[in-house]
């Protein structure tokens, strides 16, 4: 067994009286695509923010690639190799696609020509090759999601956190995106994705974590997890699993 890439130890995050993340521990090996699912408000995005460093945990530790990054700010974690996309896309609206991606590429390529060339190459890879000089503000939802991925990818991360990149896309766009995610994994990038589009999750992820009310309630291969009564109840309410098992959807 190789050393794990990411270890979370008893992470807790409170916002005032609300405990968004409640003692989450997990160990993520190198490689592969891992999914995080859970009902709305379960704390999935907060968990990503704690890993990427845009929020600090109240207690617990984040270990990444053999080092403790708990106290590092987001930019320093990006330098270590944690990349993320935002659920609500955050393009640099006044810049072109190429310039947007180049901001990410500058992290490993200080020279302008190298960064711009790298940006073009990565934009091509996520399917934005034809829109390099388009202003980011003019992009469609689907293209903005691609831009999020391209920018994060340009920082050459070891771990890439994808926050609902399929949400708001139509079925054919979702189908186009799946190979992009698989290609990332094939290049050796460890991918962690928050996703609601279940058939994509089932297709892409080898392992799932289920988060509900800030706690990890289940984990395992997708087929097992989605049969877990606890998971079903977290989505559909108490007693739902038993009712489903009886074969009746009513009542």
């Amino acid at each position, binding site marked *: 067994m190789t050393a794990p890439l990411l270890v979370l130890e008893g992470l807790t995050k409170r916002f005032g009286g609300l405990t968004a993340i409640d003692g989450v521990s997990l160990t993520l090996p190198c490689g592969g695509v891992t999914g995080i699912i859970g009902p709305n408000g379960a704390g999935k995005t907060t968990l990503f923010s704690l890993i*990427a460093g*845009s929020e600090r945990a109240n207690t617990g530790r984040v270990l990444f690639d053999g080092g403790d990054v708990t106290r590092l*700010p*987001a*930019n*320093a974690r*990006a*330098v270590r190799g944690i*990349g*993320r996309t*935002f659920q609500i896309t*955050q*393009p*640099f*609206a*006044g*810049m072109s696609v190429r*310039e947007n991606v*180049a*901001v*990410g590429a*500058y*992290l490993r390529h*200080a020279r*302008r020509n190298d*960064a711009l060339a790298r940006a073009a190459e990565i934009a091509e890879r996520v399917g934005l090759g034809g829109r390099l000089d388009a202003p980011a503000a003019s992009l469609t939802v689907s293209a903005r999601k691609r831009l999020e991925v391209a*920018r*994060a990818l*340009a*920082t050459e991360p070891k771990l890439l956190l994808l926050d609902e990149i399929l949400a708001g896309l139509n079925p054919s766009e979702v189908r186009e995106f799946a190979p992009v995610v698989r290609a990332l994994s094939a290049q050796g990038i460890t991918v962690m994705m928050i996703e609601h589009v279940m058939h994509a999750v089932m297709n892409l992820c080898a392992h799932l974590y289920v988060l509900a009310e800030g706690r990890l309630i289940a984990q395992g291969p997708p087929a097992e997890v989605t049969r877990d009564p606890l998971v079903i109840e977290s989505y559909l309410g108490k007693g739902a699993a038993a009712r489903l098992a009886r074969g009746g959807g009513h009542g």
Partner: protein
Amino acid sequence: MRPYLSIVIVALALAALASLAHSNTLANSLVTATIIALAGYGWNLLGGYGGQYSFGHAAFFGAAAYVDAVAQARYGVNAYAAFVLATAAAALVGVVIGYLSFRAGLRGSYFALITLAFAEVMRVLANAAGITGGAAGTLIRLAPSPSHFQFVGRQPYLWIVLVLVTLAMIATRAVERSRFGAYLVAVRENEAAARALGVDALRVKLQAIVISAALTGLAGALYAQYFLFVDASIAFGPWISIEALAAPIVGGLGTVFGPLVGALALDGFGEAAHAVAGRTPGIELALYGALLVLVVAVARDGLQGLAVRFFAARRAGAA
């Protein structure tokens, strides 16, 4: 070399203009306008590219003007050394103000207010302190000779400002084409996203305010050297904070030629308004205000943006 070609052309045009400015009135007007342009280049870097709108660039302008004057008048420092010292002092003030406000996470209107407050505090202090000459101000002893950085006539000053403005344009272009420039614009557009991509936003903003303060400081030191006099309301008064931001906004925010175009346009407009309505007191200020409103309403991206759109439309019409 190509990205700098337009700067060379503009610099040559300025040189042609300067060599035609034989009358003292015109030369004087041009010197003042280009000094303001220089101060505007400082503001443009932090405000235009970095999106941090300062209302107190007088703090940098004034610090440099006072250091330049006081070092010569009180301590007999060589004029050129005083000039360098003055610019460094402005940069230092930039570090202090930048560290205090950016460290505290101030942005938007809060940053604007805190910079205004810093400039006003410095104005009050300069007016009260002994070393600055208090309310009487500080005079630099008249000694017209190049060894004292003083010249007979306006023309030599004009050439000096033009060289500095050209250097400011080159510096602006170099920033545009650097990693630092990309990071600066990224911080302006979306700070959280920039951080997630590994950008140390605090450091980038601090670097920007230091360069910005030094550029505006150059203008302040030159101003003191040109008029050989500073007092608190000249050095730290709100007038220069406003001129330094109006020039890039009117000319084109976050562009290489914006501050120069804006400063020249505002100066020309001011002179014209004065000539037309000179007898009614304050009318030129009203017209000046009207122009600002018009620019904000018609050309959000400044005169340069207006020109670019005009030519693009003509080309589209011709094709």
